[in-house]
């Protein structure tokens, strides 16, 4: 990854405009076209660190460490209740994107940290997962994921 950086506001403005354009064009179904958003980052930064077959907790810890090292989020807390996985993402640099979506009466529908966890669970554990809900709370975002059984084929 290039060490050169661009202004955070500029990057988030572009992401907001692209997400909004996706929503305006595709409506609620737009979220299904952004389920792999962050995959290049996942492949470059997370995948090499996911050695062996870590459990869910281990996967989330690895994704968090990668996100923190790259200055993307500060915290990622996980709470599992059966097949539901609640992620609380704090200090995310993309938070202004979601706030601008809300200001335009559009529920946020894409989350890179949540996508990274979904991609990792799918690849490492061969278990599909789905981002069911994204909520903005004071100081953090809450992503609700659903876990499915390991694929048999």
């Amino acid at each position: 990854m290039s060490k050169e950086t661009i202004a955070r506001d500029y990057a988030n403005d572009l992401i907001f405009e692209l997400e909004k354009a996706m929503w305006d064009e595709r409506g609620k179904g737009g979220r299904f076209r952004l389920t792999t958003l962050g995959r290049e980052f996942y492949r470059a930064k997370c995948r090499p660190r996911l050695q062996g077959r870590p459990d869910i907790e281990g996967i989330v810890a690895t994704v968090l460490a990668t996100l923190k090292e790259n200055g993307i989020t500060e915290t990622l807390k996980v709470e599992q209740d059966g097949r539901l996985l609640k992620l609380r993402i704090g200090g995310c640099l993309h938070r202004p994107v979601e706030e601008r979506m809300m200001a335009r009466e559009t529920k946020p529908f894409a989350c890179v940290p949540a996508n990274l966890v979904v991609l990792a669970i799918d690849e490492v554990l061969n278990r599909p997962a789905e981002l069911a809900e994204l909520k903005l709370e004071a100081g953090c975002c809450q992503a609700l994921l659903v876990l499915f059984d390991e694929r048999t084929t």
Partner: protein
Amino acid sequence: MTETYSLAEATMKVIQDRRSIRAWTDEPVSEEHLALILEAGRQAPSGENAQPWRFVVVKDETTRRKLGALSGGGSSRRFTAEYVTHQMHERFASLEDEEKKKAAFEKLTSGQVSQFSANAPVSILVCGKKDVWDMPYDTSAAIENMLLMITALGLGACWLIAPCIDIRDEEKTKELLGIPEGFKAVSVISFGHFTKQPRQRPRLPLNQLVFAERWGEAYYKEQV
């Protein structure tokens, strides 16, 4: 007794008779019928006459099964997400029969609702060339044309987006059927000789749908 219709009446009858049919007999679809269905798709309108549609006819049992599994997986994820966030409960709030509601939830969240391609004698994957201006609209017109021809032939079909709507599933569908990068997997139409004709799903009345000159002023004051 043979019924006779004007062209407009016959067209409306085909439109109104179309249903989403998900269960078929084993009877194969004839090549003559298949050719008519594909021809109906080919005759659809497209921006700049780009004709971006391409059709993959799937009859092979193994491929059908894989397509059914992909569709079921996609639907299961989508509807389970709806279920756990209670959006599904809101959608079915008017259904009072708890047993029926439970069965509907089970059918949706398990993905059974979309696995029917595995049992369809024929499925057509509709693909769209990306390097044209209006591909999603063009291919949707081709799909509707084919659905109407299927109905006119006395067959039954269901338009299925489950194996294509999520980018993760679309990638797998494209891989399964060898679709090149320059094309999008848009939808699947699964069809055959149906086992039963479901009732028509309700439609909103025109007086709730049509406005006069500007949004807001109903064109029809009463139900048409």
